[in-house]
């Protein structure tokens, strides 16, 4: 079993007006097999948390820690974090011209495992995973994300999740921009991998919609760079009914105090 532990994390970004704090003390522990949802209004710092865990250079960690089974994640480069078992399904996957999906997937798998996958099994695995996610076979020969629709890009993120088998998957608004069918397909993919019991899932979302398909064990509400409330799945139901208004009022009051 693995544990991803975030302790009192403070993160800022550089702006023209100087450093702007985004995360103001976030603590969160995820174990293998657990599914956590982070919900919150726009600008609350949800995506910053995801990008910081993955090591995006835009974000500066001012204090606090992130550890994976006791190892200091913040000391690791972006690729080392991935090899340690962290996977970020990106909100806006970029297009990489001239690099085919096939080449990319194999190169990444080789890097993650430290050795090239057996060609026969690998080809079969890729085909199978693609067909389960209803991705056309010809995508394998296309360049990474090039000309893919928003929904196709998200499916390809989950394809990687299933093929790379990380210890922890962080899904950064994977549900945004998806129609109902695509949302189902993508959710099934996440559930398939999660149900194998070897992965912890951190699901970041603005909407409660995806929580009808992926059942979180824990729900954390993010407001103004902090976790404002935590609870079980019932908290998501309440948010669906009430929205974020009561947190926003509280957030404003805190900011004013």
């Amino acid at each position, binding site marked *: 079993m693995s544990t991803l532990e975030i302790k009192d994390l403070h993160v800022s970004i550089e702006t023209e007006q100087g450093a702007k704090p985004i995360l103001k003390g976030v603590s969160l522990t995820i174990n293998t097999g657990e599914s956590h949802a982070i919900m919150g209004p726009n600008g609350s710092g949800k995506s910053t948390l995801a990008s910081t865990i993955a090591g995006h250079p835009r974000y500066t960690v001012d204090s606090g820690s992130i550890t994976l089974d006791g190892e200091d994640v913040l000391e690791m480069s*972006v690729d080392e974090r991935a090899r340690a078992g962290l*996977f970020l399904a*990106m909100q806006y996957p*970029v297009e*990489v*011209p*001239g690099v085919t999906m096939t080449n990319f997937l194999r190169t*990444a798998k080789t890097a993650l495992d430290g050795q090239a996958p057996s060609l026969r099994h690998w080809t079969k695995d890729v085909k199978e995973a693609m067909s389960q996610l209803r991705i056309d076979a010809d995508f394998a020969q296309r360049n990474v994300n090039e000309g893919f629709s928003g929904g196709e890009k998200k499916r390809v993120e989950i394809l990687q999740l299933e093929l790379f088998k990380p210890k922890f998957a962080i899904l950064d608004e994977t549900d945004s921009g998806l129609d109902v069918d695509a949302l189902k397909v993508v959710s099934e993919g996440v559930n398939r991998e999660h149900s194998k019991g070897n992965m912890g899932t951190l699901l970041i979302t603005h909407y409660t919609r995806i929580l009808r398909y992926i059942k979180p064990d824990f729900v954390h509400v993010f407001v103004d760079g902090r976790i404002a409330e935590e609870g079980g799945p019932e908290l998501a139901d309440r948010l669906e009914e009430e929205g974020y208004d009561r947190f926003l009022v509280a957030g404003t009051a805190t900011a004013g105090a």
Partner: protein
Amino acid sequence: MAETTQLTPELTDEKARIGSPSSPEKIAIDGFTEEGENLSPTNTGAEQHGLKKHSHGDDPVVPEASRGERLKSYKLADFPPLTGREEDWRFTPIKRLRGLHTDALTGSGPEVTVSGASNILVETVERTDPRFGSAAIPEDRVAAAAWEAVTQATVVTIPDETEADCDVTISINGTDEAPAAQHLIISAGKFSKAVVVLDHHGKTTLAQNIEIVVGDGAQLTVVSVQEWDDDAVHASSQQAKIGRDARFKHVVVTLGGDLVRLTPSSFFTAPGSEVEMYGLYFADAGQHLEQRLLVDHAVPNCKSRVTYKGALQGQDAHTVWVGDVLIRKEAEGTDTYETNRNLLLTDGTRSDSVPNLEIETGLIEGAGHASATGRFDDEHLFYLMARGIDEKTARRLVVRGFLNEVIQQIKVPVLEERLTEAVERELAAGNY
């Protein structure tokens, strides 16, 4: 610092402005101004835009009214001495031409060896041979100087209705730096088919004219590879005259040389033909790699596609791509598109990209161009690294992918492999 648009390469369908830095303090290359003029060191002092004077006495660059009106002549005397202010020389550091534009081209020049197909004809002919001038007329002073200076030419002929039984390699091996002239004629007969590779290597100071005749119904591919030594200087005019219903593919790959300036042109002379022109260049610190193309649609119903891609790394690596497409009044039904993309891998590089499209008839199938020059995209890097791929591998993956599009067009497996390796070496040398 390089003048560049950050990150995302954008397609533009407008006439590209040259350079166009956003603020003066970004100007880092001597003589660079808003208009990209004054580039070569010989030009310093020619102020622009009323900063000093707006006279027409020693005016810097007088653009041609039409690309079709450029002076063509076999006589060197018809071309005035170069100042570097000419429209077609303004990006070239002419001081580094090592006398190609001023001196008598009396060197012996690189040795030419033709190998490969057995069913083609290889001749060395005197300059009285009537095939001199069968496809080309010099369009600049250096080409005219070479035309006057040569005494012989190598002629490679693919006879009518003959398919070359294997690829033809013309090895051009330089051994000294004396300014020299060279003339090659490649003639593909009616309904013939061949791939001809011009393989340039060694040291040289060379002005070269290559005439390419593509006969009616012929299918000819000419690949010109410049893998010169680091200090080579090479100016090459490669003009193709294309007959009826022919297919012509021209590929240039330039990796080595201090200054390499290619002027490939395709002239359609009868309807129904198609031209593809590809280019790949990789400039390292201090290298000047320039390509100026012309596609002249002078007859109806021809199609042209131009794709040039470049990578630059290291201080003062400089590339120039100027793509002129001319659709004349008679050229109804023309279909043309040209693209240039440049990837700036480090600071200190500079890439000029100028697509020009002149259209004299509206009765065409299509005409367009795109130019994009960008830095290595850090988001690409983050994406690939977030999948466990180390930085070096990730960078190479992206650059290799970018350039492979052109290499894949060569379709000569041995050469494709060699050039892929050469690109890998470039990447390794640049610590990529």
